[in-house]
């Protein structure tokens, strides 16, 4: 999370006590994964699917965009809307990733997982209860590939910005100067 409240030592300690780093895979500064599978409460499957469909390009994406840490995220209802699969690839460690979310967007987490079985009554503000819920849906990831494991989201954005600036500079360099019109050039040749 880029701005707002700082992650407190207390929150981070609660998260760390669940030893997430021993569970989820990390390939570098720019490549960690979280894969979670939870059962959806009976009768809530269609609602969960429709909420996911509606959330595209709205608060969800804005919230993720603002996180500046998430490379890719997939969230889908599967098995005839009975289960909820959540896969995320992000920078840093799973500890800081979840601690960030817990502090900055508890309401968002409540919306994402609130229709799942076992979600704590106190929601994401119940840090310990939320972490127990998260770990209950842990899916071991056997193979995790990252093409650029050390490039963080911010680095990728910066590199793309540099590419654009370089191209603009190249374009300026490659432009024929006004003095070198075709006519001028043929005069030079004649001389």
């Amino acid at each position, binding site marked *: 999370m880029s701005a707002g409240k700082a992650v407190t030592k207390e929150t981070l300690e609660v998260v760390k006590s669940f030893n997430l780093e021993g569970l989820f895979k990390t390939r570098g500064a720019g490549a960690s994964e979280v894969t979670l599978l939870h059962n959806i409460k009976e009768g809530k499957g269609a609602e969960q699917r429709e909420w996911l469909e509606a959330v595209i390009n709205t608060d969800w994406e804005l919230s993720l965009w603002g996180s500046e840490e998430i490379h890719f995220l997939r969230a889908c209802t599967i098995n005839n809307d009975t289960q909820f699969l959540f896969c995320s690839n992000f920078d840093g460690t799973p500890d800081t990733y979840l601690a960030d979310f817990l502090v900055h967007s508890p309401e968002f987490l409540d919306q994402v997982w609130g229709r799942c079985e076992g979600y704590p009554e106190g929601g994401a503000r119940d840090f310990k209860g939320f972490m127990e819920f998260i770990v209950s849906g842990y899916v071991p990831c056997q193979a995790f590939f990252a093409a650029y494991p050390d490039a963080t989201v911010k680095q990728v954005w910066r590199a793309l910005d540099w*590419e654009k600036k370089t*191209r603009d500079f*190249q*374009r300026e*360099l*490659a*432009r*024929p100067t006004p003095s*070198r019109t*075709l006519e001028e*050039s*043929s005069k*030079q*040749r004649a001389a």
Partner: protein
Amino acid sequence: MDASVTDRTLTGEDIVGNLDEIQGNIIKPYTYAQQRGLFFRIDNGAAGRQWLDHVSARVTPATPWPDAKRPQSAMNVGISFFGLRALELSADALSGFPGVFQAGAVGRAERNGDVGERSPDTWQDGFGSEGIHVAVFVFSDDVALIDAESDWLREAAERVGGVTEMAAHDGRGFEDGVEHFGYRDGLTDVPIEGTEEIYPQTPGAGTRQPDGTWAPLKPGEFLLGYENESGSEPPAPEPRELAVNGTFIVYRKIYQDVAAFRRFLAQAAECVYGSSNEDDQERMAAKFMGRWRSGCPLMHAPDEDRPELADDPDKCNNFGYSDDPDGMICPRGAHIRRMNPRDALDGTATVVRRHRLIRRGLEYGPKLPDGVLEDDGRDRGIASYLVCANIKDQFEFVWQEWVNKGDFAGLPMGEQDPIIGPASAEGQMTLPGEPMPFLFDFKRFITTRCGEYFFMPSLTALKGIAAQKY
């Protein structure tokens, strides 16, 4: 047709035995100097089938001519999906055709970059709708014979009624073999396994093998019912008799803005070499194409043109790009390196031999006189068809990924084919090793006048369609 061969996947060994079934000008080009594409709409299925039955008797197969003596004219036929529907092919048979073919050139226009000034709304002669049903291509060295064949087709159509001529597109090869932009054309063809004896080709036209030799392409890349480069058959309709020995063609009539190309060439030479003198323009033209305008490949002559190499069968096509991974000699975005990257993509996920095209076509319109830099308002370009067994994996893939993008070759995403690309705002060309190694502000030099996807059936299938057998 031998019924037994239609039950199994055919291979190169079967081709020679099936030449009387395969339409001509697919495996081997005719090399006639003149061609005419006549395009018809079928308004009455029964009449249309009767007319097609007449026409099918005149269709030229791929059978070698006795004593290599070319007949005075040849005729070939393709039918669009809308044409097959108008000829009342059964719903089962129709539904078996690949979806891309069913959508037709109009349905696929956006994906193929036929948008804006190239969009189907602007297409001529009833193209751009579902109204082009049957294409009959007539070839000869003598225009009078083409006229006679055209009249015969029209009279036959008039006799049955319900068949309307929509357009006639003429093309002819220039005597010097040089196309409108000034490049020598027709230097490369695609060799097909099993046809080596009837159509021997120069080294370099097929696929590079690990030992450095070149292998022909599997027939299934260009003929239905045959094994392709992935060891299976291309998608095809049922029954098998309808598909086998047939293929698909992508017809495109393309306008070439020669004056704009010449002006840009001078500007580009000025940008890259600091001069637009003739030598630098020729060098620039070679970097765009990957060949000097004489046809001599850059890979054999990086620094200056050696026109004799274009006529040397051991050199004209015999090269790869593995020694030039960065494109210092032949830019990675040069036209011929895009249309056939040869060994340049070895080690990547892209299998070049699954994306090859056979091009058959001729120029139309008068040449713009040498040195003229202003457009004379005359229509000119190329009217050609591309042969492929799988329109989606071959024609559309090449157009969408290799012509319109740069990513496949490790170039900027927006880098496009310098000659036939869409020249969007991001368009550029990377020219490593040149005094100015990048070039921008490409203009659009070609415009799609019209196009359609046609099924080119075997002779048996053509008669079967006319007899409403499928």
